[in-house]
């Protein structure tokens, strides 16, 4: 356990006590949520509340449905054919499946960073300000400012400030991932979904992203999927552990890592588990 709590790379980061900021406790509320890809049931009876301006980590073995749940939060799964769901997800009290709710505005509210970085074949600048462009911002000064702020937050500004007009595809894999993060926060969404944002990053960049998460949670609610126990421990306030599409345990990160109530959780975080 102590290994997890004190990762060698950074001693500053500790497990934080949950819910120390005020805000809605059930900002995002998932109720009896089940989800099918065609005949295959990928999620089963998920129920959890994500408090406002906190970081929640989803952990679990590969294929357990973390990404699926995450992608349901901004309805990115709508793009997949033959999907079906049961239960409900509400954000700030309103169901995301409300027929009166435009899915586009939901996605503007709920930003997302994908597991695999996916910069557009455009310039770095255009990538970052894309979200602003689609809402109709034309003012160059506003765009430039947003670009700089977002890139600074994503710890990329210093590396790219001289080549904002170069193609984003000329960046390294880690830089691309940070660019995608910058892109996702440029329009200041309320919720940020991050699917293994650091899987392609070196420890330094990872540290920067983790710092960013700390900073962002002052304003945003963050849901992060990660395979790194250390990372979950370092950055999250609460952690949910999934296994085979089921939610095994959801509690404060402290509780999950120090004193998990389920044997499966214990086994997974201590690495004795496939």
């Amino acid at each position, binding site marked *: 356990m102590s290994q997890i709590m004190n990762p060698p790379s950074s001693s500053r980061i500790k497990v934080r006590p949950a819910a120390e900021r005020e805000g809605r406790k059930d900002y995002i509320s998932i109720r009896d949520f089940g989800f099918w890809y065609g005949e295959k049931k990928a999620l089963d009876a998920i129920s959890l509340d994500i408090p406002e301006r906190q970081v929640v980590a989803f952990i679990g073995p590969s294929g357990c449905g973390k990404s699926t749940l995450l992608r349901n939060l901004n309805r990115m799964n709508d793009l997949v054919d033959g999907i079906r769901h049961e239960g409900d997800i509400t954000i700030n009290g309103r169901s995301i499946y409300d027929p009166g709710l435009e899915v586009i505005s939901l996605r503007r509210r709920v930003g997302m960073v994908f597991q695999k970085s996916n910069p557009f*074949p455009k310039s770095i600048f255009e990538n970052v300000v894309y979200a602003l462009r*689609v809402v109709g911002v034309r003012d160059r000064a506003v765009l430039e400012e947003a670009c700089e702020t977002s890139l600074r937050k994503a710890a990329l500004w210093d590396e790219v400030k001289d080549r904002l007009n170069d193609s984003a*595809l000329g960046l390294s894999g880690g830089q691309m991932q940070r660019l995608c993060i910058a*892109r996702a926060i440029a*329009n200041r969404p309320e919720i940020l979904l991050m699917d293994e944002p650091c899987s392609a990053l070196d420890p330094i960049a990872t540290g920067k992203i983790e710092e960013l998460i700390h900073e962002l949670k002052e304003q945003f609610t963050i849901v992060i999927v990660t395979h790194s126990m250390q990372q979950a421990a370092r950055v999250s306030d609460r952690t949910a552990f999934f296994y085979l599409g089921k939610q095994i345990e959801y509690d404060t990160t402290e509780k999950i890592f120090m004193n998990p109530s389920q044997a499966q959780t214990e086994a997974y975080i201590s690495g004795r588990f496939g």
Partner: protein
Amino acid sequence: METSDKKPSLAAAPEARFTVSPMTLATDRWMGRLIRFGGVGVVLAVFGMLAFLIFQVFPLFTGAKVEPVGSLSVPAGAVAFGEDEYGDLPYVVLADGKVIFQRAKDGSKVLEWAPALAARRVTAVRSYPRSGLVFLGLSDGAVQELRVVYRSTFDAAGKRTVEPVVTALEPLQVGKPGLPCVEVWNAKGAQARLILVRQEEAGRPLLTAVRLTERKGLGGKAKVTVSAPFVVAADAASVDKVLLPSTAESLIVIGKSGEVRTYADDGATFSFLQAFTPFKESGDPAVASAGMIFGNVSVVFVSRTGEQQVWSMYPQLQPDGKSLRRWGKIHDGEALAGAGEGVYAAEGNKCYLAVAGGKLQIRNMTTGSLRWEGDAPSGSIRQLAFAGNYDRFTALSADGKLHRWSIVDHHPESSWGAFFGKIWYEGATGPAYTWQSSAGSDEFEAKYSLVPLFYGTVKGPFYALLFALPIALTAAIYVSQFLRPEYRQVVKPVMEIMASLPSVVLGFLAGLWLAPLVDPRLISLFCAVGILAPAALFAGFLWSVLPQPVRRQVKPGMEFLWLLPFLALCAFFAWKSGPAVEAAFFTVKDSASGLPIADFREWWRQTTGATYDSRNSLVVGFVMGFAVIPIVFTIAEDALSNVPNSLVSGSLALGASRWQTVWSVVVPTAISGIVSGVMIGFGRAIGETMIVVMATGNTAVMESNPFSGMRTLSANIAVELPEAASGHTHYRALFLGACCLFLLTFVINTLAEVLRQRLRERYKVV
């Protein structure tokens, strides 16, 4: 792999797992070679094709090959000559009317014939070498006609001997009795033959003519009636030269001052037509030499300074508004080396030989191009004549020599200007780009301008793409990005089948079914097509204002199920309202009855003054569009579908609408593929042949008018190659068209490829 499993011994030698079998290496090597061979083969085949085309075209741009083939010494006093068909046995006529035949091979004299004229003398001689006619003008104004015939006989061994025979006709009194003839001419008109003599009466020129009308009598015996002599061109102050066309339908008299007076046969005599001075603006207006070009409607004038002008008869607008055939200058030729000494027309084409400044030049009258230049013989040339098939010419010089040249010039009418420039053809009212390769008459001059064909080659595809691109590209975007995959799987193969539809079927439909169908209902069609875009937009608007619960009834990607009937309904009503629209906007007065009629075709003709063909560019564009749509669609759709899904998700996750995603992420990413599709479609449209052949009138016009037809380079080849004689200028001109088509597609494809590479560089996806 299998073998290693079967043989347990391999396990004992672990390194065997790592050795590469010679078979694998050999296959690899051989496949590599095969592929390289194939690649090089394709490149060679393309270059071979180009080389073949160039090889076919090259002779068009070589000049004439003219070689002297020896000269024959003839009596020094010879003033005229003539020869047989092969030039083996030429004759010269001396000033006293003696005709001497000599063998061309060795100069030996074969026959000497002298006229029996008693007290009269020969004062003028004119020989027409190609017809074997010699006219002797006599000292009393009479004219004696001699006919030279070559009679061939075969001896027992089958060897041919040719024997010339001269027949002298009874002298005819043509000129004023008592005055000697100065010059004599003969020409054969449609009805009558004309013999013209020039005499001098008290220092004034006197031109007198008679007509000889030949009527076949009952027994097949010809009976010749000779008219009374009549004076022509009495108003000419001075006569320096007289040009009498071989058809005798007009007469051109050139005065010493350089004034040219033309007369036309009016049945009885020759009436004055027109007077002009070609070199009025030059320092010396005198005409040094002049010659009538084959076809009898053009004359080449050369001044004393070597300036050349070509004048021709063509319809000209007169002050009273009538258009009459009058003489006018059609070309300013290149200046010659010195004063004109003679202009001699070739037979059968528009070339002429000009003698000036010690040089002989063969030029083409129409294109002005110099076919050949060579040195003139030492003595001044008395007479020069081309053989009938333009394979040699003979000149009699004053120093008693008969010079002979051979000509090899297969394409006298070709030049860069003829193919690519504006040319003023005989009889036309101005310079123009014209393609007209054949006509009924022998004197017809083929016109090979490729420019109108180029124009058609670009015009057809332009209208096709105008129609096809919006449809193909929007369809590709819709199918790849919005349509549900189940339907996409149906639409794509159907489109691909459409792409393989033979274009002759499309052309057949276009020409025989669509064109006559569309023709009377053009406005209805415009309305029906025109309504589609606004109707689709309106449908989109309706859709967006529908409440969410209603919209959720339709699955995304299935919207077309109600959009299609809506559009069909709109188009139907638009089609039905066509006649009303036509009546409202396109009513014109019928020229025949004077009643107002609602007819767009008539309206178009009257308001724009342009033509309206029922097989027009729109029909071609429409049907060629059908040939192009599947290609553009398939390639563009592939490119659009290949845009990684992650980019689409990335854009959607940032709150972009589907359309924003398509427009700002998918299309730019796929743009190089889309450009390829468009270019391949364009290439297909340019090379498209059968549709154009069948759906247009194939008139080589240069009009941007969408309601006129066109002729493309490829259609031109398809239509005319079967009737073009191999090796003929026409044949090679078609190959030149093919060459140009090749280059055109090459240039377009190269540009497209460069554009595509740059776009790809710009929007490449990792």
